[in-house]
């Protein structure tokens, strides 16, 4: 695949890129994958419980976050603001995961283990989000290098939550077991992922191909290292095709 791509790139014509630079709107497709990691320790330290605090404020304390993978794809539009400056928006589908794991002894120590499934007895929270996200970014284009800085804002999220629980199987002799449950929800998330992308463009006969690297920043010291391709087409050519 990479050989074919390299051969195709070798036919590059700078004229296409020049046209693209002078269009008011420039459309592109993005596809990429990412790896979620963390700054510092993945353990979520407990904070002091104040009277009146909700359960949700302390829900993930004493758990360890797990690195995960994900992917994104979608369409972008660059709107030219000044010579090298663009505003980029569009629509992206993103698949992200959050996993919080507890040590089973910690759950037994700090929670009341009941016979029924109960959120206080959760051993692992495993969330998978399929998000519809709107990127809002400022783009600086300098020759072949493009720098995007901004944020991805999820507007709709299909959340699949898998909970594994510790339950007490008998009082005497005391024994514990595990159980699990999956709950699906459509949500409007109140999240924001600050992001940056750095790309280098290769000019092809009809299009521009921009491999990129970048990073999204999430909650609880998490970040998403990402890489992929931005496939750009000239606005005039797009019209012709239609």
């Amino acid at each position, binding site marked *: 695949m990479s050989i074919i791509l390299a051969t195709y790139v070798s036919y590059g014509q700078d004229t296409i890129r020049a046209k693209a630079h002078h269009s008011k709107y420039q459309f592109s497709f993005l596809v990429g994958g990412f790896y979620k990691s963390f700054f510092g320790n993945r353990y979520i330290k407990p904070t002091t419980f104040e009277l009146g605090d*909700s359960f*949700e404020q302390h829900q993930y304390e004493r758990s360890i976050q797990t690195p995960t993978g994900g992917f994104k794809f979608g369409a972008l539009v660059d709107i030219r603001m000044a010579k090298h400056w663009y505003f980029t928006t569009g629509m992206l589908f993103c698949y992200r995961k959050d996993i919080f794991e507890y040590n089973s002894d910690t759950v037994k120590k700090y929670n009341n283990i009941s016979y*029924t*499934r109960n959120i206080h007895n959760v051993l692992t929270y495993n969330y998978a989000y399929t998000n519809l996200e709107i990127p809002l970014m400022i783009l600086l284009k300098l020759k072949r290098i493009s720098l995007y800085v901004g944020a991805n804002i999820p507007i709709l999220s299909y959340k699949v939550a898998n*909970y594994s629980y510790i339950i007490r199987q008998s009082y005497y002799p005391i024994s514990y077991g595990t159980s699990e*449950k999956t709950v699906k929800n459509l949500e409007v998330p109140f999240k924001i992922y600050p992001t940056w992308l750095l790309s280098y463009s290769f000019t092809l006969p009809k299009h521009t191909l921009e491999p990129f690297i970048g990073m999204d920043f999430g909650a609880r010291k998490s970040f998403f290292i990402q890489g992929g391709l931005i496939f750009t087409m000239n606005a005039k050519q797009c019209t012709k095709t239609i």
Partner: protein
Amino acid sequence: MLIPLINCGCKKNPFDYRTKYLGNYVFVVHSSSYNPTDGAIDTTYTLDGKIDYGSDKNTILITSNGITGGDYKIYEDGTVETEHCSGEFATSDKLLYSCYIHVSMMAKWSWDVVGEKK
């Protein structure tokens, strides 16, 4: 045309995790009580009821035979609880919970409820 849609949207928010549990239910209640005068009493009965949004964003309101059972706190995994009751939605159509009240030193009352959506 948009006005009725907006109105319906406000009533049942599809993006609220409680929405899938709302509706009309049939509750089968198994009640056990004990007091020194009557001794132990075990009964099972069926009630028509309804589950609606509660007064807070993380509560549901359970009503049976027109009498409100009050707000139940509901967590994201479908676990429900009040001061005397705890249980869970096993699925989005089935609620299981148990309640226990120590009425006095000599009297106690507990009941188990299975609610199924009509």
